């Protein structure tokens, strides 16, 4: 049990360390990305993206909230994606 916990911590620490190093080395941070780019990147990682015209603005609010939790989107990313979808609708 103790060994297993140590393994989990070890793997997690490696992932966090690489993330910080690569994240800090890159120029374009998530906070500067527009909603259209975040929509393509995050939604397209698992499935084909749905056109904005598929849902009403109100339905997009629910869909984005659902995907925010499922895909672990940040609050800023979710807001930008929702704003893009509504503007393009």
């Amino acid at each position, binding site marked *: *049990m103790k060994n*297993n916990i140590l*393994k*989990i911590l070890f*793997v*997690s620490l490696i*992932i*966090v360390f*690489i*993330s*910080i190093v*690569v*994240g*800090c*080395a*890159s*120029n*374009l*941070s*998530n*906070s500067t990305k527009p909603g259209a780019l975040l929509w393509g*990147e*995050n939604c*397209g*990682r*698992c*499935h*084909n*993206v*749905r*056109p904005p015209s598929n*849902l009403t603005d*109100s*339905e997009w*609010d*629910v*869909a984005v*909230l*659902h995907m*925010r*939790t*499922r*895909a*672990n*989107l*940040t*609050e*800023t*990313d979710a807001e930008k994606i929702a704003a893009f979808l509504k503007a393009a609708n």
Partner: protein
Amino acid sequence: MKKIKILVAFILILMLSQSLMAQKEPSHKFLLSGYGFTNLEIEGDHPAQFEIGFNPIFLWSINKNILFESELEFEIEDNSTVVVLEYAQILYIANSYMTFGAGKFLSPNNIFAERYHPAWINKLPNMPLGLSGHSGAQLVAGTQVGLQVRSGIPVGSTKIVYALYVSNGPSLNIDESDLDTLGGDFHKINNPNNEGGEGGHDAAATGTLSFNNIPDNNSNKGIGGRIGFILFPELEIGYGFETARVGTDDTEYSDVRSFTNILDLSYVQDIKSLAGKLDVRSQVTLLNIDNPGIALLNYENNSTAWYAQLAYQPYYLESSFFKNLEFVARYDQINLPQEAELNTDQKRITVGLNYWLNHSTVVKFAYGNTISEHEDESESESTFIFQIAMGF
């Protein structure tokens, strides 16, 4: 007279406010989503079989921070419609870095179950070996009943995503026929939930786990989770785990524990030089169940399953026909302990050709060849599957 004027003014104000309220967007919002599919499967010498599935997803947002989500699974089995509660949970977004969920939810440590299993998202009409109770031995849960906390944390241009949960956890199966040889009502106390894979689709073989653990077979709770790293927007790697005591309380097996390690990778990239999109997915699952050194389980109970899948869609081509085609290939494998009751190793290669009618409706043709190895015997079987799937 004055009272009448006040009353009329009050009614007018009330009517005006109601009119304004009616124009204002309601805070409660609802969305009906989901997917459906039809399969035609021709497996070896078995008769060709049609299957259908309908999975509506209900989403209610009470406000910007509270969401209820539920999916039902309708299937036809033995001429009866079977309804399964796939998931149902209340989610509360506490802040940017923590979302809490309570209920039945897709298992966060199993990325295939959580993100790729819907028929219109899964690139092939079958599921990878070891990840689903529908395709033989299952090593990892598709759903959990319990509590979870999850979110994503941006780090420069990358992001770390995490999920941690506490749940009923899996339960250890002890086969009734094996236990009958020990006499008495032994099996009833060692395996009160006697079930197989998720939803009870498979016979429960001794030494395997059941993931449909309601009621919980012991006082212990399973703990699991996943940490994922989105190195580039196109690449995500993750590590998932679960630890749980799986033996039933007050039995000889009560101290038996399981530990699951899962590694996953997904890479999705538009490649202009190839005129299309490349989609690579892989998952490795390692399951270790304690050897208690007593009858029926006196062996090293370690199992592995993994798959690697490659898909390519040339959607930058000008031809409206060819740009909707998608080519898919997957290799998957499961290895089970040779001393166990369920000990048939399997290797499978599946190739598929998909045609996208629109962004969420796809027609799939797939051919798979499975090699099953049991002791010194080996058997090969071919499968053809046709599927039409639609997400809505």
